[in-house]
């Protein structure tokens, strides 16, 4: 009996010590590490892209293909997608989404492989759809189709439009994030892979890899707001770059083997600390979670600009909860940095955007720059007001 009590005591002590160690490690991960910084590149406004509006529609979730073709949902017509050409600055055509996709699946964003193979990502967090250029449904996948049971235990994070998949047509493989559904309130997901590679035709999962790292691993059952809790994924050839909204590091995996190859600190010269996550019971208090979201700095997804072989990572700076009027801060004046990185993720510049010019999730990567959606400086005669920024050497 004595041995039994001793075993419980020792086990309790180990758990308690581990928790203490994790909290200490978490605190250090929330602080920006020293990163090498070579300030040689800037991003400047090149051109205002004005597409004349021929209707009063509001366009949502714009996505760009090959730097020129822009697809966007029409807010007022739930089943319509509009196509614009950025070069000719014109509305090309609209198409209707297949009625086979249930009405309740609100459209979130796209991954455009080509204009006849458009992956549609929706609020249905267990399914991905593939459409042809006329909106017809070619195929759909649910986590259940991929052999993951019981159903709905894993979700795709693509109800958040800042997340996306990648499709390699040569290998017929889809690279996606697939997150346990009990996340983020449970601490029992530390070892669960969050990335999946599956064959588009056979539905067979080739590889599962990428359990939470860094802050997300060490936070245990503490919580961040939902949309700041999912991993961002960027696949370029055999490398998949995983980053998190509240982690200074980028984790680079070999997506053939699933092995974490290296991690690199990619942080702003101004953002030194992230706030501590909240106790898990706070997740029920949506206002408290939103207040955290309003105030905290956080990173956007890592972008790759293929023509110039550069990466960018935007970070929104912290802000006060409320404005002078007592209203919550909407972020209209939020400061944002875009960190510019070379092909090895070495920091080679940082450009600051003030007064909310870089809106949250309001930019799309181009092969040689960024397209920022603007609600400033344009009138309502333009369908998708946007500003094209390009990389230039910094003049000190």
């Amino acid at each position, binding site marked *: 009996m004595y041995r039994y009590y001793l075993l419980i005591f020792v086990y309790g002590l180990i758990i308690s010590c581990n928790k203490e160690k994790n909290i200490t490690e978490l605190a250090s991960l929330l602080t920006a590490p020293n990163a090498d910084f070579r300030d040689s590149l800037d991003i400047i406004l090149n051109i205002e892209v004005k597409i004349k509006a021929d209707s009063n529609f509001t366009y949502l979730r714009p996505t760009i293909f090959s730097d020129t073709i822009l697809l966007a949902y029409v807010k007022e017509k739930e089943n319509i997608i509009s196509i614009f050409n950025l070069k000719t600055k014109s509305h090309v055509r609209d198409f209707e989404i297949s009625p086979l996709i249930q009405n*309740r699946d609100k459209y979130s964003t796209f991954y455009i492989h080509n204009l006849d193979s458009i992956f549609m990502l929706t609020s249905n967090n267990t399914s991905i759809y593939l459409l042809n250029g006329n909106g017809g449904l070619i195929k759909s996948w649910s986590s259940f189709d991929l052999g993951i049971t019981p159903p709905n235990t894993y979700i795709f994070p693509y109800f958040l439009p800042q997340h996306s998949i990648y499709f390699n047509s040569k290998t017929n493989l889809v690279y996606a994030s697939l997150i346990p559904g009990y996340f983020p309130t449970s601490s029992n997901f530390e070892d669960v892979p969050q990335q999946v590679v599956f064959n588009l035709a056979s539905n067979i999962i080739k590889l599962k890899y990428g359990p939470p790292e860094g802050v997300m691993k060490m936070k245990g059952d503490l919580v961040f707001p939902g949309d700041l809790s999912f991993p961002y994924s960027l696949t370029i050839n055999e490398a998949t770059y995983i980053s998190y909204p509240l982690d200074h590091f980028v984790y680079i995996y070999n997506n053939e083997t699933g092995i974490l190859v290296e991690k690199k600190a990619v942080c702003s010269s101004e953002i030194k600390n992230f706030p501590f996550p909240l106790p898990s019971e706070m997740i*029920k208090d949506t206002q408290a979670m939103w207040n955290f979201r309003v105030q905290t700095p956080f990173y956007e997804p890592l972008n790759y600009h293929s023509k110039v072989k550069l990466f960018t990572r935007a970070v929104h700076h912290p802000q006060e909860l409320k404005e002078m009027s007592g209203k919550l801060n909407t972020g209209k004046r939020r400061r944002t940095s875009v960190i510019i990185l070379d092909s090895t993720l070495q920091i080679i510049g940082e450009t600051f955007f003030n007064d909310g010019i870089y809106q949250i999730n309001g930019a799309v990567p181009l092969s040689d720059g960024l397209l920022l959606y603007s609600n400033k400086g344009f009138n309502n005669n333009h369908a998708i007001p946007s500003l094209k920024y390009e990389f230039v050497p910094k003049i000190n």
Partner: protein
Amino acid sequence: MNLYPRLIKSSLFLLISIMGCDNSKSNCRYYEGFKLYLSQVYDLDISTQGDRIFYVLPLEGCDECLQINLNLLLERNFNSSKVTIILTGANFNDIIRSKIEAIKRKYPILEDGKNLIHQFETGFGKPLLVHVKNGDCLLQLQLQIKKLKVLRNIYWIIVNVGLRSYI
């Protein structure tokens, strides 16, 4: 046997259980923000109101969840002199729009098409029930679909009988 007092008792027990389990949603922590919202957006001074219940209903997001709320409001006859529905955002689904029109004919409505409520610290995220009497907050409850079935009867009691007199 008169089932009505038993229904009230059992429903209140359930309500108190829900409140007890999830205190963050049932208290009036964000009432000041709600008052500010009503005064700045609708020029409505809540302290001059008698016994009022505000039912804040988001029209965007999950259509299925919205339908459950709309059906509840259409099926049950809540006391329309006491209840004000605040509709936030916009919805372009034809079936839902027809239900919204029916609700507009049945209850007093305040419309917030631009989602201005998000600029205030009101505790709003899911449908929100705020019970106010002479400027005091009696109850602020965020409604979850899972609990709506339980809440159906509780609603009726809150709205038509009043909660405070039974606690």
